């Protein structure tokens, strides 16, 4: 029994309590601000991230570099309780459009499979603080899907896995 108690609280319960508290605070900070847990609650990113999928948003992913084409990012709305999950198609300053079932960027066709059969996109040039984002699910009606320009300030991180 004594051995079991030792295993549970250690030889110095006070110190164990302090360690556990520090660990709890660190975990709280990490999961509140750095790796924000999220659950997918729509079909916009099917089949890559289906309804109910669990993941994390890595908010420090872009501290040392800018978002890249193909990254799946979390976009904040009025706050971070509800976020939109989208894939980056266009980068700042680029001109893009969709035609012949493909996306064309600065006159060159994109060949990545997740950009096939895009929704209609009229020729658009992005500002230096804008990205163009789209969901992976092309079975959804275009008018029901959120896609288009988003301010870089709204991109809060990259989906971890």
């Amino acid at each position, binding site marked *: 029994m004594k051995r079991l108690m030792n295993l549970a609280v250690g030889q110095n319960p006070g110190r164990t309590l302090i360690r556990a508290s520090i660990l709890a605070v660190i975990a709280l900070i990490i999961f509140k601000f750095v790796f924000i847990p999220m659950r997918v609650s*729509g*079909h916009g990113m099917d089949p890559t991230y289906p*309804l109910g999928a669990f993941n994390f948003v890595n908010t420090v992913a872009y501290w040392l570099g800018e978002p890249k084409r193909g990254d799946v990012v979390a976009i904040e*709305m009025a*706050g971070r309780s509800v976020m939109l999950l989208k894939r980056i198609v266009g980068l700042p300053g680029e001109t893009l459009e969709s035609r012949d079932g493909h996306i064309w960027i600065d006159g060159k066709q994109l060949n990545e499979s997740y950009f096939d059969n895009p929704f209609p996109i009229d020729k658009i040039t992005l500002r230096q603080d804008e990205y163009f984002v789209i969901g992976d699910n092309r079975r959804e009606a275009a008018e029901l899907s*959120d*896609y288009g*320009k*988003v301010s870089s300030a*709204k991109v809060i991180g990259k989906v971890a896995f």
Partner: protein
Amino acid sequence: MSKQKQIISVVVLLVVVIVGWRYLFRDEVSVVKHRLTSLAQDLSVKEKSPLDAVLGGRKIASYFSENTKVKLTPKAMLLGRERIAEYATAGRSKFDFLEVAFHDVKIKIDGSIAHVTCTATTTRKDGVKDAMEFRITFEKISGEWLISEVEPVQTIG
């Protein structure tokens, strides 16, 4: 009475006074927040019922001012409380389950006007959620906070 009992009595009395004070003299931000929470509850549908749809529609309209302006999309707008009641009744009769919630509510009071930003979500029976960011303006009319304007914010567009 022992000293311990005296201390407990004072603490209980203090808690009752504080809770009572906060209930009776709620700050305006809490009142507006409470209005939004009630609106979300009344917008939610638990089961399909034509009578509930009509009553619910009327109740929802009571949150809005007489000349309210509700922009649903950049092109569609509802004007006036009566249109809200009609629209809410028609909308509610289409669902047998719908859960509405407001998240990340930020409220700024400016005299008799309250500026609110929030994300509204609707959850269907199959668990699929839709979300939209809104700017809502409340106006204090005859002591009651009523919604005078609703405008969607295009997060992506």
